[in-house]
């Protein structure tokens, strides 16, 4: 297996990035829903959000690297069996994923930095606040964060269903390619 993508195959890096981000997004979604419902005396009351923010910021850097990698080594061309509308929708879905993830990260950042407090990332470094003047910023950004996150989970589910359809019904290489086969 090769590091970079070719016109017919995904490379190891692209495959690893795909699954790492997919898994992390689902973990962050679950963690986010769970941590906001915790009792005040729960041990995770402070650790949950700390972990959520730290992982979220790290994921942003991973996503940036993914976009850089994508430019450096473009993904393989669509299978010839795919119809034009399928290719179009697939491309649109990928674009939506990137836009949604970036918007979710940005809105999450705006919640925690609404009053000029930085975000601590695993105690390694801090991300400083920039925008702090939106009225009731934490509430508005929190609402956007939740709505877009729910949206990305919905889109990911459709994306997975489509992949399974290609694998089991169309019996083509779509899913195999992103598994490195």
């Amino acid at each position, binding site marked *: 297996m090769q590091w970079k993508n070719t016109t017919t195959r995904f490379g190891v890096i692209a495959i690893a990035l795909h699954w790492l981000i997919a898994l992390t997004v689902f973990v962050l979604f679950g963690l986010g829903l769970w941590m906001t419902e915790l009792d*005040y005396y729960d041990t995770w009351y402070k650790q949950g959000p700390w972990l959520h923010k730290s992982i979220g910021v790290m994921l942003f850097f991973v996503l940036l690297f993914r976009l850089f990698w994508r430019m450096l080594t473009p993904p393989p061309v669509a299978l010839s069996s795919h119809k034009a509308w399928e290719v179009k929708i697939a491309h649109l879905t990928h674009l939506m994923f990137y836009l949604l993830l970036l918007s979710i990260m940005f809105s999450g950042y705006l*919640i925690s930095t*609404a009053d000029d407090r930085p975000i601590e990332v695993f105690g390694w470094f801090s991300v400083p606040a920039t925008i702090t003047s939106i009225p009731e910023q934490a509430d508005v950004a929190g609402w956007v964060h939740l709505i877009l996150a729910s949206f990305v989970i919905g889109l990911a589910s459709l994306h997975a269903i489509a992949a399974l359809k290609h694998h089991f019904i169309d019996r083509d290489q779509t899913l195999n390619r992103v598994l490195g086969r």
Partner: protein
Amino acid sequence: MKLRKLTTSLILAGLTFASSTLMAADYVIDTKGAHASIKFRIQHLGYSWLYGRFNDFDGKFSYDEAAPEKASVEVNIKTASVDSNHAERDKHLRSDDFLNVDKYPEAKFVSTGYSPGKDGKGTVKGNLTLHGITKPLEIDVQFIGAGKDPWGGYRSGFEGTTKFSRTDFGIMKNLGPKSNDVEMTLSVEGIRQ
């Protein structure tokens, strides 16, 4: 000409006199100039005091030093303006775990009576509406001072303190046994109308 001038002055003087006797005791709380604040404090874990404010409110009061027993006060608070100097906590305080500001955007206190005490002290009786629940509440009041301001107006100021359990108003989120009681301090300066 002279007579008309005299009549006009008399009418004006009469109007001024009438309005000053009618309105002598009515004050609007100076939230515009921010010479008023509504602060609360609640214990954190029973280990320290956490202070916060409501930044957006308005109100009025009546107070006549010659007849203090007739005093009355009304204060309306925009609950969304809660400010504990931490945006994420304020977001939580606005949520349905606490103030539920979408459902209950306003809190208010309306007095029903006033019992003057000694040395400018007194007790305001009234009803507090918070979180959609109205309950009687007493506020201990201390008259601070009154007089002309440097800009042609007349001002009068008080400080009121009170204490209640937030659970009485249906705010049940568990913060520990020491964190049910809320103490509030209202510092108000009124401008005579």
